[in-house]
């Protein structure tokens, strides 16, 4: 049996769900735009500080497909650059949250006892505070910046991963293969990361791709509240919030940026569905 074989079968299983393939295509498109933004965007210079009052507040037209904002910048170009920001934000926050949450959940469930009580109570405390409020509280400490926003969101997000991993590992803790590894003399680290973690991977991957959507939304909310990336960085959330001042006359500002967020979130959610189907059978 060749190595490519199970992967091919996995893809077939994933592809059986048409919607998740559509989601993957959406993400691929967004990713492509984000990576090659300077080449894809019709007016790449509009991502920065550009003032062009001659073309300000223009509705969608052949020249500016999605119209222009109040200082005359092309909305489409800014959305394409905004994808960069959103994807990076999602990727950084989700990977930080997964790393921290996984370690906490794994250690708590495997070691048990006092370690478990302390770690899981701390997790519960974090869970008790709404993510947005927690992130805002952290951001309130100092000047808003993209980096701080990402750290704040990761801090708000990791407890969910800790809970997820904790639940899985708790149920596997006394499975035969764990005992077998312990009897052989495998170190706790080896048992946790070599034996138990691979069994969490499917759920973590599925949750990660769901979270990408939610985290991007949370990031957009923070930007909307003026706590995200400072201007002139093109940020989808900021664009929605700024555009909302001009509703309903300059409708394209908020609606297009909002649709862009919707596309990313939808793409990741559809892929998450497909991933869940994929791992369900093997699990």
């Amino acid at each position: 049996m060749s190595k490519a074989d199970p992967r091919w079968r996995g893809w077939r299983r994933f592809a059986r769900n048409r919607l998740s393939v559509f989601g993957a295509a959406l993400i691929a498109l967004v990713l492509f735009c984000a990576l090659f933004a300077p080449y894809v965007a019709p007016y790449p210079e509009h991502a920065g500080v550009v003032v062009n009052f001659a073309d300000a507040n223009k509705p969608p037209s052949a020249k500016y497909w999605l119209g222009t904002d109040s200082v005359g910048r092309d909305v489409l170009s800014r959305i394409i650059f905004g994808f960069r920001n959103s994807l990076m934000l999602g990727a950084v926050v989700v990977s930080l949250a997964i790393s921290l949450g996984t370690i906490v959940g794994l250690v708590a469930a495997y070691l048990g006892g006092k370690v478990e009580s302390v770690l899981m109570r701390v997790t519960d405390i974090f869970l008790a505070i709404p993510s947005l409020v927690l992130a805002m509280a952290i951001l309130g400490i100092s000047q808003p910046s993209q980096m701080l926003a990402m750290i704040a969101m990761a801090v708000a997000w990791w407890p969910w991963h800790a809970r997820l991993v904790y639940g899985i590992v708790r149920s596997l803790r006394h499975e035969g293969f764990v005992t077998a590894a312990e009897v052989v003399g495998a170190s706790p680290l080896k048992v946790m990361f070599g034996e138990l973690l691979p069994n969490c991977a499917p759920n973590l991957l599925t949750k990660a791709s769901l979270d990408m959507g939610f985290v991007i939304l949370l990031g957009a909310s923070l930007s909307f509240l003026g706590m995200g990336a400072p201007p002139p960085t093109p940020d989808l959330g900021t664009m929605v919030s700024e555009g909302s001042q001009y509703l309903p006359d300059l409708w394209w500002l908020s609606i297009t940026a909002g649709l862009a967020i919707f596309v990313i979130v939808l793409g990741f959610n559809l892929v998450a569905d497909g991933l869940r189907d994929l791992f369900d059978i093997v699990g």
Partner: protein
Amino acid sequence: MSEPLLQIREAAKTFHVGSSEVKALKGVNLSVGKGETVAIVGESGSGKTTLANLILGIEKPSAGEIVLAGRPLSGRRSKADRRQIGLVQQNPYSTLNPRKSIGQAIGLPLSVHNVCRRSERRRRIGELLEKVGLHPELQDRRPLALSGGQRQRVAIARALATDPELLVLDEPTSSLDVSVQAHILRLLKDLQEELGLTYLFITHDLSVVRVLASRVIVMYRGLVVEEGAVADVFSGPRHRYTQQLLASIPTVSAEDDRLKPDWSWEADVDSTEVAEEGCPFRPRCPFALPACAAGTPVLAGPKHHLHACLNPGGAPTRKSSLELLAGQ
């Protein structure tokens, strides 16, 4: 007699559940000679699994000691000590990590103990698989692709990976199809002859005991109540619990039924009653004497057949339970 491979001296284990204590083992003595097959039988809660966990180092004894090949095992186990003991577990559907290939499962003990160089590992895993009657190419497959019997063979191969002296087999056949059980038992027997292994069987399947074991140890509520050569114990059980246990082997003919003990062994007694003092079987025993409540009976009798009963059943005059089993 040469020095026994495994010796357990006065092993006791008490679990603390909330504020109450559960005495899982109350001072068990046991010795297993090299190349021997010893079966430990008993009902749930008899302490047989706790005993196995002490031997494997999963639990620490509250008292007593475990001696392996002359070296007492206490505190943290050294890798050399761990290598000497292999484990085959009950449920082959949970003993293999579903996310890892067969080769990775067998490779774990090889890498933990540095049995062979990384480049040789694949070949070594193949050899181990062949030893248990599986195709070496199977090492790239996931457990999901294997049947229960095949998985149990993989578990045996994994247990053999470190060239252990002693294999602890915890109900190795009880979750397998009857037709597969025979194959696994034959494999175990062949491996024992080939590699000179010592087996410690934990089981409640008495027909497995008869086929494979040379000596049997009957446990009840954390104590050894009877111990002896399989033929002796099966043909003339002395302790009332052993008699009851052997009598509970299902029979199909009236002729067989006549061989059952002449006392009401079937009487459903409230077995939840725990005797704090004296013989633990006393609440269920129709032959209990006042003396039974005084102190825990100690193992007594000829060396090849010990029993801990103050009012034991006599040597049988009837056709023995062993023949009864053979007749099935």
